[in-house]
């Protein structure tokens, strides 16, 4: 089924390509979101990766799995974006448009109130590479081999990082009932575009 879609897309069928985009949009977006903390940069990286996919689709061999290829394209784009080392930013278009049309941030508040404070605190105490592996595994739902691909690390390294991260989390959650820092620890994660 997917092979057929790929072949149709290779022939220039936009509708078939859109099905592929829809199918893998969450995977690619989440992966980029983990690799690039800046939301706008992550969205740009995903967009560029999909354009790369479209432009290079003629080279893709039908019958091979599309997912690892897409993840490679996404991680390449994220690395390029990270190399530019742009400062963290908030895009004007999204923020301004949201605020001007609708100054209320109802769900932003509601959603932020749902954050697991204890877990967030425990995660924040992990080394950054362990945090990333955990996020790629449990947010992007990548397999360990895929995490190795997108991070450029060896599979064994990924496994050991994930092992240490989970062990650390378990231990911290059991022993550390850290007080909540409710006001300022929320991510910029309003329920908005």
């Amino acid at each position, binding site marked *: 089924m997917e092979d057929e879609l790929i072949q149709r897309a290779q022939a220039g069928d936009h509708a078939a390509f*859109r099905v592929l985009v829809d199918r893998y949009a969450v995977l690619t977006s989440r992966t980029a979101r983990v690799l690039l903390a800046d939301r706008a940069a992550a969205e740009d990286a995903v967009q560029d990766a999909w*354009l790369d996919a479209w432009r290079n689709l003629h080279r893709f061999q039908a019958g091979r799995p599309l997912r690892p290829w897409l993840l490679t394209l996404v991680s390449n784009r994220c690395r390029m974006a990270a190399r530019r080392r742009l400062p963290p930013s908030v895009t004007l278009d999204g923020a301004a448009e949201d605020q001007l049309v*609708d100054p209320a941030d109802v769900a932003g508040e509601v959603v932020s109130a749902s954050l697991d404070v204890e877990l967030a605190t425990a995660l924040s105490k992990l080394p950054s590479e362990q945090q990333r592996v955990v996020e790629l595994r449990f947010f992007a739902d990548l397999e360990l081999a895929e995490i190795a691909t997108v991070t450029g690390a060896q599979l064994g390294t990924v496994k050991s990082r994930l092992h240490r991260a989970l062990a650390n989390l*378990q231990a911290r959650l059991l022993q550390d009932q850290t007080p909540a820092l*409710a006001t300022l620890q929320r*991510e910029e994660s309003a*329920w908005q575009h």
Partner: protein
Amino acid sequence: MATLNEQGRTDPSVPVTPELEQRLHDHFRVAHNPEAAPDLLWQRLAPQLGGSPSPTLGQRGQHGVRLLFRGLAGTPSRRRILGMSAAAVLALAIGGATFPLWDRPAPAGAEAQAIVAKAESVSTAPLVPSYHLRAVTSQGKQSESVEEWRVGKGRWRTETTLRDPSGALLSLVGTAQNGVRQWAFSTVKGQTHVAVWDLSAELPGNDGSSSASAGAEKSPDANQLQLANQQKRQAEAAMLAKQQAGATASSSVSSAVASKQALMDDAKKRLAAAGASVQQDASASSVGALGAMSPQDRRLADEKQRLAAAGSARQDAATSESATPAGMSPQDQQLLDQKKRLAAAGSASSAGSTASQPFAFGPDSLVGFMKAVSMKLCGTPQQQGSETIAGRDAYKIVIVPDANGCPDGRGAPPVGRTIFWLDKQTYMQLKWEQYAPEGTLQARYEVTSLQYDVPIPDSTFTYTPPPGATVLTVTPQTGKQDIAAFLNLGTGTDGMGKP
């Protein structure tokens, strides 16, 4: 006890409980919310695909030019415009649990100030010169107390404290702003960290490299200059973005607007369907008539109403100076006093600071509130009577997200029923409760005491670090995550090596 292997599941050396796995999934889903919708991704992609995936020589050239152009000028779809302070404050303020909706101190970055000023300028909600409130907020087993003070648009302070059963302070987190100076502070286990910055770094003539420590209090016109400068930059950036995007590009702005429009349309439909359930109190404004107006008529009516109210306020103040009406209720007396102060403030405002101007809490009617809620939570809000919260009459509004999710492809919000209590006079949120989809109470917030129009010493809005505090002077180069990390708030890393 499950284990993991290459597929993340069966390696005996990596223990992970199903509970932890579920918590991680849930946490990241919320922490990274909102996620990009596939539809929006496609809207951005489609115009750039061309006819065939096999690039022609011309297309390769185009691609090369596009990359070169991006390398020189940044991505056309996303202009990174906001300065450090705006980004940092937005990150800190927008998501704050004690800033539930629009009724909390506005984010104070220059860009954010412009946004909020614009939003407030089109609101006809009653103006409030100041307030002081105490509230409690709880999430799970944790309960914190909140205290807020605000005078005008540019002076506020909010503190959230957590204490143990004996009353000992476990943590205190807050923000304060006094004109162009802003502070974010946290005290945990006796250690205080303070981030301080100077919003005037965004003013014309500043190169953006000045630090907060160099900034003295600016003149009363500083905020106005700041706003004017930001608006100019915003207009220039919008023009530049449009030029860069060209005729073929589908900008994220337009797609976002289109998406927002779809949401607004959907909200209108929901409200129309729920019209019969909106039992507006006699004391409320003419919601039905406003709801039926066209946007143009609505703006005209709003303007007339504003002008009439302003005239009425001055007239009321003039006529009531010598006499106290007999039989006036305490609430009416309070309102009259407020009008007198507003009239006085209005006559002095031309020479005064924007920071001390009265402000509004957001949407100008119950319908406006319900529309906003409907757009955000994608459900049909219903008013379910009235209750008294902290001595104030409040509308009770219940919304249950639509099981079919939002019409713009966001899917269903990860929350269930949400109940708001809204001050009938000011539209300030006095209380809210948020339930999980399965029905358990997840979080709540409730104002326990509230005073409008109270005198508050100016010193309240200046944070003085205690001895031994660690102070971070924020510069335009300081990332929001650096600030969060400094305050020990744990927002993680940039994911690509930068701690």
